[in-house]
């Protein structure tokens, strides 16, 4: 990490996710061979905090950038770090096709069920009845559809090798998430296919909660809809 102070709200999972990603790259001694792609969203400034070469992608397009970078530089680690609006709304096509082509990249997907940067609007992953600035009376699934389980969706694609969903609000969670990210970087580097790590995270500003309360709310509401654990390992779906 650089020594810059993180711009994220107090208690936001982004900071932890950034740190464990960088720790993994340190452990793999891969800093000199890694190119990261930042999205548009809260983590648009990821390149201010991650001390590696990074490119800032247009909203939703990071998987396309990563595709080109990896194909042009096959000896490098290439990853995207994206939020749910970036990856599951505007970037759906780029996400699905990068996965379908089985690009040997890592996608780190922070799912906090809301658009954080722009002030808490509803995202494709916003839960039913969950309030946001564009669903003030709660998300009405009748008119705005159900939360998009993009991770389960891409797990079906043969090009995807490893899919897992983690959380970083508890010590155990952080340890598991770090192990998963490390596995993702190792396996994509061995050209086994796309490795996808979703991190369900809190957004206390968007959810309008205290940080600690938001983590409790997350466990009670987000986890039932986005269950933690491995979804696909070594190219095989884990049967639930």
């Amino acid at each position: 990490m650089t020594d810059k102070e993180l711009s994220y709200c107090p208690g936001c999972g982004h900071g932890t996710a950034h740190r464990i990603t960088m720790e993994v790259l340190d452990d793999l001694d891969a800093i000199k061979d890694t190119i990261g792609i930042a999205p548009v969203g809260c983590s648009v400034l990821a390149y201010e905090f991650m001390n590696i070469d990074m490119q800032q992608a247009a909203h939703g397009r990071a998987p396309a950038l990563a595709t080109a970078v990896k194909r042009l530089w096959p000896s490098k680690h290439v990853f995207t770090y994206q939020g749910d609006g970036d990856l599951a709304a505007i970037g759906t096509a780029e996400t699905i096709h990068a996965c379908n082509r089985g690009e040997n990249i890592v996608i780190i997907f922070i799912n906090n069920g809301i658009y954080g940067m722009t002030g808490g609007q509803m995202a494709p992953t916003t839960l039913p009845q969950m309030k946001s600035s564009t669903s003030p009376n709660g998300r009405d699934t009748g008119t705005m559809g159900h939360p998009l389980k993009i991770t389960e969706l891409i797990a079906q694609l043969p090009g995807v090798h490893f899919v897992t969903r983690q959380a970083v609000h508890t010590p155990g969670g952080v340890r598991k998430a770090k192990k998963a990210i490390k596995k993702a970087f190792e396996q994509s580097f061995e050209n086994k296919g796309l490795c996808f790590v979703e991190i369900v995270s809190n957004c206390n500003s968007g959810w309008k909660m205290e940080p600690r309360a938001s983590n409790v709310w997350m466990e009670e509401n987000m986890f039932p809809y986005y269950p933690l654990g491995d979804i696909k390992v070594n190219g095989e779906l884990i049967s639930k």
Partner: protein
Amino acid sequence: MAMKGKIVVDTEKCKGCEVCIPVCPTNVIEMSKLVNSKGYHFMEQVREECIGCTNCALVCPDGVITVYRVKV
């Protein structure tokens, strides 16, 4: 053989989110009454029974906690 721990908090960078408080197994940390220059109450160690387990440092989103431990 027990472990004795000590934490150092970068009080300026702490944003007072309190996410670390519930994960301390020996409840040695609390939010200070004082605030840093940005007006955040920062976390501080208030008891000696710290065992250096690093739980607080693991979950701290801003990485402001450094943990030291020694075998005693």
